[in-house]
């Protein structure tokens, strides 16, 4: 029952927010329902329910390993959202608040979906619900970003549906009776028709990979993250991409059961390394600090994909990275939002000396940048270290070297942009604009909390989390 509440509670919140008359008080729906969701999620996390194998939806080990991170990120972004929407009180926020809550409910459905069709429906619904959020600013640039998001994302979603059909046909051809739960598909194992499984794998990897933002299907990401409000960027980067990643993990376990796991691993490793390389090269070129965050997100999706290619230990490391990347990236997005608002431009051609104008946001931004490029005490360092250890244990020496090389290039790219906007003397126009922006507690505390969580995750990774990641890896790769 509780697993359904995770979906129903935010959707009820969305309906109430849509009906609520006051533009001024409506944003409070976000933290209230976010908090309810966090309480429910962590209650389920500590008392994991027994999921029936044939259930279409359930709080299974994989959902348990990922959903709490998404829920926590949403709550903190929601708290930031209250202050953000107060600053933006000139714009109606009915659709914005309602759809953000709806996305939380749909993400809960997507993470818990144990059925191929249900998983697709949840992902499709999240994609559509995000569309109005992207053009919240209603500028021509935002329209352009939304159009590209729809075309690329829509095509990706269409291909993942085709992939789902192919996997369904693989089951039918192998004598299945049309049961498309992942449990049934895995149980059918070698009975699945091989050519259809491989076709399905390619289509599903491309389809859900588009949603996740793996190169070369990442092209919607810089535009969308660059033009959307930073709170939307944080939730897209930490929540929506995660549901696509768990989808790929679930499909990967079916492909593994069908006996084609080595091909799946090889493609995941290649596409992961390619994403890291593309992201690192674009990071060296971009001059926009919000687009920079998008390329950094592409890079980290590459890391997740590489982790997923490395068997049980790699998957556990990748799930760790889902947490550390989501929370750290959230801090970066929110502080970048503050800087963007104060500076009036996202380009390092116009913005300089933000450490003088917005000292707190700039400090969080710089610290967050070091955290996300794997400076030791923070979460990403430890999760990436685990990925590297899994890679070396799997004998992937060359891949590890490329991985480290890309990390170094990305570090150069990120520091170039971040210090470009933080250092120096501010321009007079920027200075005038920044006087209208006040660094209140409402916009500083949420990113600071996210940064703190990232540090806590690195220094004191709780045993219960490690156990949850290991349990999810066991669910996907049952010991032979």
């Amino acid at each position, binding site marked *: 029952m509780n697993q359904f509440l995770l979906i129903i509670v935010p959707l009820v919140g969305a309906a109430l927010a849509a009906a609520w008359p006051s533009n001024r008080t409506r944003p409070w729906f976000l933290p209230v329902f976010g908090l309810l969701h966090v309480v429910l999620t962590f209650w389920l996390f500590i008392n994991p329910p027994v999921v029936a194998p044939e259930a279409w939806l359930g709080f299974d080990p994989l959902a348990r390993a990922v959903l709490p991170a998404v829920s926590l990120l949403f709550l903190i972004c929601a708290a930031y959202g209250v202050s953000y929407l107060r600053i933006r009180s000139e714009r109606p926020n009915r659709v914005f608040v309602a759809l953000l809550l709806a996305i939380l409910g749909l993400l809960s459905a997507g993470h818990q979906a144990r059925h191929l069709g249900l998983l697709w429906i949840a992902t499709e619904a999240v994609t559509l619900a995000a569309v109005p959020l992207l053009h919240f600013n209603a500028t*021509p640039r935002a*329209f352009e970003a939304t159009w590209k998001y729809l075309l690329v994302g829509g095509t990706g979603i*269409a291909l993942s549906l085709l992939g789902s*059909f192919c996997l*369904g046909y693989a089951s*039918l051809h192998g004598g299945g009776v049309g049961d*498309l739960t992942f449990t049934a598909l895995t149980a059918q194992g070698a009975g699945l028709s091989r050519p259809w499984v491989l076709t399905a794998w390619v289509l599903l990897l491309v389809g859900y990979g588009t949603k996740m933002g793996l190169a070369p299907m990442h092209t919607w990401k810089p535009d969308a993250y660059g033009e959307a409000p930073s709170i939307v960027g944080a939730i897209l980067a930490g929540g929506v991409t995660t549901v696509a990643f768990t989808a790929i993990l679930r499909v990967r376990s079916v492909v593994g059961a069908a006996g084609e796991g080595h091909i799946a691993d090889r493609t995941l490793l290649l596409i992961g390394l390619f994403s890291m390389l593309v992201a690192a090269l674009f990071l060296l070129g971009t001059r926009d600090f919000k687009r920079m965050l998008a390329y950094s997100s592409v890079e980290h999706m590459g890391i997740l994909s590489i982790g997923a290619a490395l068997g049980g230990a790699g998957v556990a490391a990748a799930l760790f990275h889902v947490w550390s990347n989501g929370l750290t990236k959230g801090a970066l997005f929110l502080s970048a939002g503050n800087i963007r608002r104060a500076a009036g431009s996202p380009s390092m051609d116009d913005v300089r000396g933000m450490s003088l104008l917005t000292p707190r946001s700039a400090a969080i931004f710089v610290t967050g940048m070091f955290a996300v490029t794997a400076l030791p005490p923070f979460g990403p360092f430890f999760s990436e270290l685990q990925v590297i250890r899994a890679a070396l244990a799997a004998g992937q020496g060359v891949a590890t070297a490329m991985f480290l090389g890309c990390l170094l290039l990305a570090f150069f790219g990120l520091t170039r942009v971040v210090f470009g906007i933080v250092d120096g003397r501010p321009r007079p126009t920027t200075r005038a604009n920044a006087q209208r922006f006040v660094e209140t507690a409402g916009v500083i505390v949420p990113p600071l909390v996210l940064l703190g969580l990232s540090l806590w995750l690195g220094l004191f990774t709780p045993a219960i989390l490690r156990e949850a990641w290991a349990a999810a890896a066991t669910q996907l790769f049952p010991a032979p």
Partner: protein
Amino acid sequence: MSGGTLNLLIGLAMGLNLLALGSSRLPSLIRAMSLQGVFLGVMPLLMEYETLNWRVVAVALATMVGKGVLIPGLLRRAMRAANIEREIEPFISFVPSLLLGAGGTIAAVALARALPLLPEHAGTLLVPGAIASILTGFILLIGRAKAISQVCGYLILENGIYLFGLLLIHSTPLLVESGILLDVTVGVFVIGIIVDRIQRAFDSLDTRKLTTLRE
């Protein structure tokens, strides 16, 4: 199983793909697309006419109304609002698109041979039809500059996926079927709204003007 009639309809749908690729006027592109939608709606009735139940009828009706009437109507409205009638200067012009489409159709038939099919599907053109429509959709998506043409391309891509889904209509539960239709419709609905908005922002539905955001 009236396999002959089914194959005839799939063949006609494949012909409409080529018509869509070759037409420069938007009304004829939309007409080709909506006719294809109606053909697609008839197919489940033909496939399941011996064991006809309300689910199949509902899928068929929803497809015919959605793909054949509602969506083309929406697109025509968007077209009038934007005051454009033809596609001028596409990225891939019409004769090369047609050649690509024809080549793709032949390749689709060849490719479909490589995939194993159940005996009851072996005689149908469902898989080649699906692959050909998906390719057509991609050519239109990539090769056309006007937003409405791109939406038509996306719909033909969806039609191809629907054709493939017909292989599973006997075995998949209702949820998948209804979810697909609902989402496709909603997706296009949203796209329609966006087209409307883009038009207001740019005064033309030319996606070539969407080039501010780049590296």
